[in-house]
């Protein structure tokens, strides 16, 4: 125990990694949960890959001298937000199919753009683009962590303030609008702030891990936990534990912490499905033993009574 604390104190990269793990778990809890409620979990993947395309464009603009001041992270944020707005627009009516298509198209477009631009940027900067795909939580610098922290905090505060609105938009869009809530504004607020957080998380830990951490724990919790707050807390716990185990493992054996965290996150969903199945089976057994013949007799009598009434009506 003392050893571990000593290692953490003496290695800033590990401190940054731990902090980033907590922040990504916050993003998963705030963003992932509501995206899953909204039926938009795949948007996380669209946005994460858009960040990659945007980075490629940013590097290209910088290196080609077209827009020298353009930081690639601006490209990532811009693309992510555009994809979120595009998806949100397609899905305003609540039709998931359209949103899926929007994400699919954005995904294809950003990846193609990234690959296209790779031929026009200096080879030494190509790894920066790939960094957005696989990422490494152990290689973060201070600025990365500060940016990640600011968006995570912003996302957290907005989610705390507007979680009811986000839930209402997901549960009953029409009803919310009809009662005078500006549902469209909240719909876009949620998508845009999520996109910003996802983009920066992608820069920090890579698109693949972001997708795994944002979607799988939220889907898992939503199978088992029966209140909105419960789901948010459970997502945070699953995401954090997966990441911490990933980090710890990477010290013992030679392995990428993100890979372990991603696998654990995915496993949490499979585990949740199993638990749910077992629960349902137990539930059914109980129902079988408690339904006594007397109940059945009564049901039968009632159904006869209804039949009679119906016949009676027809005679007129």
């Amino acid at each position, binding site marked *: 125990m003392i050893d571990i604390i000593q290692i953490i104190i003496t290695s800033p990269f590990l401190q940054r990694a731990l902090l980033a793990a907590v922040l990504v778990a916050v993003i998963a809890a705030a963003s992932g949960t509501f995206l899953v409620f909204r039926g938009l979990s795949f948007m996380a993947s669209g946005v994460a890959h858009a960040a990659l395309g945007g980075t490629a464009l940013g590097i290209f603009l910088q290196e080609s001298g077209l827009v020298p001041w353009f930081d690639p992270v601006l490209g990532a944020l811009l693309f992510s937000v555009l994809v979120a707005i595009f998806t949100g627009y397609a899905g305003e009516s609540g039709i998931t199919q359209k949103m899926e298509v929007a994400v699919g198209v954005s995904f294809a477009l950003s990846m193609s753009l990234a690959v296209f631009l790779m031929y026009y940027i200096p080879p030494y900067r190509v790894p920066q683009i790939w960094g957005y795909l696989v990422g490494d939580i152990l290689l973060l610098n201070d600025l990365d962590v500060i940016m990640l922290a600011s968006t995570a905090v912003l996302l957290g505060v907005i989610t705390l303030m*507007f979680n009811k609105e986000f839930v209402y938009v*997901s*549960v*009953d869009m*029409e*009803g919310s609008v*009809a009662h005078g809530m500006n549902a469209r504004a909240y719909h876009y607020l949620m998508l845009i702030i999520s996109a910003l957080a996802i983009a920066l998380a992608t820069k920090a830990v890579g698109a693949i891990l972001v997708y795994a951490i944002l979607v799988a724990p939220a889907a898992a919790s939503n199978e088992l*936990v029966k209140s909105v707050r419960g789901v948010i807390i459970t997502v945070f716990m699953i995401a954090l534990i997966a990441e911490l185990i990933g980090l710890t493992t990477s010290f013992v054996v030679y392995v990428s912490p993100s890979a372990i965290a991603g696998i654990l996150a995915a496993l949490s969903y499979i585990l949740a499905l199993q638990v749910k199945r077992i629960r349902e089976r137990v539930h059914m057994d109980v129902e079988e033993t408690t339904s006594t013949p007397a109940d059945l007799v009564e049901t039968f009598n009632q159904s006869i009574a209804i039949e009679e009434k119906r016949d009676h*009506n027809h005679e*007129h």
Partner: protein
Amino acid sequence: MSTPPLIEAHNLAVRYPNGELALHNVSFTINSPSFMAIIGPNGSGKSTLVKAALGLIKPAQGSIKVLGYDSVKQVSKIRKLVRYVPQRDRIELAVPMKVKDIVLMGRLLKKLPPRFASSRDTEIAKEALRQVNMESLWNHPFPELSGGQRQRVLVARALAGEGSILVLDEPLAGTDVESQDLIVDALGRYHRENDVSIIMITHDLNPIHTMVQDVLLLKNTVIGIGEPCSIMEPELIKKVYGPTAKIVEHSGHRYCLTRDSGFDRHD
């Protein structure tokens, strides 16, 4: 006339983005206050009419007013007055809402963020659930209820809210006899005891025809308007529901028998 009409439509037409003309040449006036029913077969534009009245869809032509407020220009006024429950299939079940969360929505939607529930809100929500005999399921997950129970909770959401007009889209669809009776009784009682109007879309007028004052019969335009008994005309009903529809008289009331029952589904 001192109070403006509950609903007033002038030559209203509504077209969906896909080109479908859901309503055309709709003109009618319903005085306030009222307990009114909008009836008509599947796809006859009942939900569309209500959505146009609430400003959820813009008219392609003409206008519709609620208590004198235009559904396009004065929509925010209308939304202060209205408590709306959409068709049951519009409620997303993937969100782990509790029964209490759904009912409290009726009150919290009219507040400003962060929309905390006061103890009075909770009390009113519980009372509303009591009206439909669901108070014992206060903490129960909403998606795990039966269809009829869910419908009862949604009606309770409307009862718990504030605003002088309740708009309910097919609250009786897919309900068992018990739920149907509870909902009809609760709405009837609420209308008698409070100064509110109720606009209810229904497939089947029979369960409520003794308590409704006005009936609007739609088939993409107004086919009939009037008291329940004047709408229950064999010729009128046959025109809308087809030749198999029948009107029967039973202990002084007319009942309508159609092949058309069950649940509208469309997105």
